[in-house]
């Protein structure tokens, strides 16, 4: 249970509208298919895959133009380039200087922003339905003709550098930095999507221009839109905007698995009131058949560690077990506690129990209902639906798999849970921020 809501700073990209006339297009290869539930339409515009989900009466629209590849597209030297390129691009376009764009977005309440992650990047749009057409024009012009002015570049870079300087200040973020360093060593994910102070500091505006130009090939893009929009009308708009982009021949390369050959323990010494502990282990990706059993297993593990560590023994406010959603995926147990040894010992015992015993029927009580509830909670907003469809399309074997999520969860058996627990919950790699004396290697490395 958390308390006081945090104040987040508002970072909004205000952009400008002028006239975009792209009334004729050629070379379009448009094929349309409609999903079984009729609300989702897929089509192709000159190699650009498009997914449109219609939500009748929705007063807002969300869209994302996703770029494939993520950190596989960058090196240690230019790490952070996609994040910075997309963030800078959303400041202004050649035709529409940022002052005009900012005013237009203030006038309409729309927003466009850019960012990048481990597996893909995105330029996203949020607008009211009423203002969608104008916002779309701005969105497309930003993508096709970003201004990349020195001032935009300097501001976006300084924002990114400020965040990077700050990334070890909070104990939780410090734990994340240590985790990335340990877990992603010698892996493509070691090139952080936000880069380093050094790599971002060395990026030049010309680097961004070139990088952005290379992104604009339809073979490496995915467009997802959710709102009360007619797919045919949208298709015409997309064709007019993106129909002339080069196809390119981008081929997504699989990302290697993360190394969990043996358990490890790394500690960052810090004098703080409690110890922050995370134990990371391998997990199946969204495209893996084990994914659903692992999701159920992690939900049960979460319930168990909460019960044992917090409810029964009051050792921690925040014990948890979670699963990430990356292509090279991981799961983790996490706790903040003065008595880190006892907390981790209890958590590892729960993992041991899940590996050795079949979950009894009452262990499954509430699991289907929980997934049903959280599934709908995750479907509440158009932006969440865009993100979900894109994630499945980019790293989950295709967006249609998202439609069978609940069915696959319901099919999971106690035996499946035990099997994935045995397969993945081992060789746990621990990272700690806090008092090194509070950490016993014997306990932490027992798994």
């Amino acid at each position, binding site marked *: *249970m*958390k*308390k*006081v*809501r945090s104040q*987040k*700073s*508002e970072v*909004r*990209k*205000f952009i400008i509208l002028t006239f975009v006339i792209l009334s004729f297009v050629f070379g379009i290869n448009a094929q349309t298919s409609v999903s079984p539930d009729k609300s989702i339409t897929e089509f192709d515009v000159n190699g650009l895959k498009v997914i449109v989900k219609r939500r009748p009466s*929705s007063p*807002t629209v*969300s869209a*994302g133009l996703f770029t494939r590849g993520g950190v596989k597209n960058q090196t240690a030297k230019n790490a952070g380039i996609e994040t910075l390129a997309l963030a800078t691009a959303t400041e202004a376009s050649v035709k529409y200087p940022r002052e005009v764009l900012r005013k237009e977005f*203030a*006038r309409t*309440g729309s*927003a466009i*922003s850019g960012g*990048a*992650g481990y*597996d893909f990047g*995105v330029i*996203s*749009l*949020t607008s*009211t339905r009423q203002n969608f057409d104008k916002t779309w024009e701005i969105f497309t012009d930003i993508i096709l003709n970003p201004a990349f002015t020195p*001032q935009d570049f*300097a*501001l976006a870079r*300084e924002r990114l550098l*400020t965040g990077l*300087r*700050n990334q*070890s*200040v909070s*104990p*939780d973020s410090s734990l994340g930095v240590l*985790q990335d360093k340990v877990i992603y060593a010698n892996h493509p994910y070691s090139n952080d*999507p936000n880069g380093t102070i050094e790599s971002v500091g060395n990026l030049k505006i010309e680097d961004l221009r070139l990088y952005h130009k290379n992104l604009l090939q339809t073979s490496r893009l995915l467009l997802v839109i959710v709102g009360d929009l007619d797919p045919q009308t949208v298709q015409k708009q997309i064709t007019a905007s993106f129909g002339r982009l080069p196809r390119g021949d981008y081929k997504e390369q699989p990302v290697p698995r993360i190394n969990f050959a043996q358990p490890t323990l790394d500690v960052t010494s810090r004098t*703080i009131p*409690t110890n922050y502990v995370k134990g990371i282990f391998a997990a199946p990706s969204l495209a893996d058949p084990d994914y659903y059993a692992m999701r159920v297993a992690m939900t049960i593990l979460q319930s168990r560690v909460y019960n044992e560590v*917090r409810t*029964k023994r*009051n*050792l921690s*406010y925040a014990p948890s077990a979670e699963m990430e959603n990356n292509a090279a995926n991981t799961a983790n147990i996490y706790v*903040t506690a003065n008595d880190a040894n006892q907390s981790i010992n209890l958590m590892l015992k729960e993992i041991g129990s899940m590996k050795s015993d079949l979950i009894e029927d009452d262990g499954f009580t*509430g699991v289907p*209902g*929980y*997934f*049903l*509830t959280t599934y*709908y909670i995750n479907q*509440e*907003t158009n*932006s969440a639906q865009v*993100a979900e469809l894109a994630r499945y399309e980019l790293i989950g074997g295709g967006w249609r798999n998202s439609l069978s999520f609940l069915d696959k969860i319901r099919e999971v058996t106690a035996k499946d849970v035990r099997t994935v627990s045995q397969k993945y919950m081992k060789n746990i790699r621990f990272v700690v921020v806090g008092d090194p004396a509070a950490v016993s290697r014997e306990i932490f490395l027992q798994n």
Partner: protein
Amino acid sequence: MKKFLLSSFLITSVLTNLNFAQTAKPNQAAAKDTAAAAQSKPQDDVKVPFVTKTLPNGLEVIVLPDASVPLVTVEMAVRNGSFTEPPELNGLSHLYEHMFFKSNQALAIFRCDLAKSYNNFNYYMGQNCAEQVKLKAQIGDVSYLNEVDKLGYVRNGTTQEEYVNYYFSTTSPNTATILRTMRDAMLYPSFEREEFEREIQVVLGELDRQQAEPGYYLDRTLMDKLFYKYPSRKSPGGTRETVSSATTEKMRLIQSRYYVPNNSALIVTGDVQPEKVFKLAEDLFGIWKKGEDPFVKFPIVEHPPLTKSEGVIVNQDVENVIMQIGWHGPSIGKDDASTYAADVFSYIVQQPDSRFQRAMIDSGLAVQANVHYYTQRNVGPIRVTLVTAPDKAKAALDTLYKEMAQFNNPNYFTDEELANAKTLLEAEDLYRREKLSEYTHSLGFWWSSTGMDYYRGYYKNLRAVSRDDIKKYVSGYIQAKPHVGVALISAPAQAAAKLTEQDLIGK
């Protein structure tokens, strides 16, 4: 730490400040409870289509129907929190919140029934079940507890200065069961001593986490200095000492004072029909006895104004510098007009092309600069926040004070920016409402700090805000007013930047 920030997909970036723009009228709910009893009241402003009904016992029921997804969120909101806490009770509203989802009398009866059915006489005798089951006449059949664990709900609670809430989200067919669950947790807490002692340790663990964050010391310093006579009233977490020494008797004290229907609201959003919810609410919560108005017997304190400006530097191991300048802002019920003006002004100066943002951000002096007013019943603070590199701190402060001196210059913002600020506030609400399970808490926040009448008229009143209103707000609360300036910076960076406490107050 999630690295992938799909910023516009996390709608929070578009919505941030509204959550803090709220306040409350002390006797608003009590004044209208009988008059409005049993009358469903349609929302005047079509923008937020909630309906309300006040039960005869004073419980306000607020329903916002939306069938976009088959979910329901049920929230109980209570006007409690640190604004009701003298030093000796500081943090105990929060501890009470932790105890809410623990054992209650309905659960005790359920366990006794189970023990009886399994012939577990040791449990039956040990738990004094013969007495427990007598409560069935009052609480009713508790067999619903057989089903609760199968519902698959998500639940949580939060404690703030003027608002404590508890909520469940589940699929809409479970509405009646989850309302019953909420009712029994609200009306019949057990405060079992062993559970209570354990939960104190959990809350201390939560305080440990807060105090491990450098930002905590910035926030606490600013609040303690601004509200120097009654700092506990602005500190929902309380202290280790008060939490450690808490007793179940103190929990009962809080329950008797604040957990009465005429100081609470039931908020239901999602795939529901208002009339059915009202009927369920009457059936379940009608037996809850009305209590004394806690704010008559225990009035909120009067925070004395600042007599002079003060600068404070907080040294922590941080890389950037965060500076906040704080003032006493308006209070709901005393100066509502300025609360609307405050929100509009904050949204004028946060527009990226505003003069303020161009001076602070486009100039390269800071990466973040905003003005924020936290609407509260009892003196909402106004804060200006700057985030920058240490070597720019002095120059950024110098420019900030020059800009603030111009806030009432007629040319400081355009008519277009004034209109856009109102549009942005409305758009923000629209985006926020899409995430209805969370928007429920916004409704609770509005109810608790401002009362729903304030919120009903909120957007209409925002639209009416004029330049004169903003001038009055800026003159009355910011310009030439005593204030507190706090900087969070590392000691070496402070020395290198030659940043002083005088810099923080514009001297």
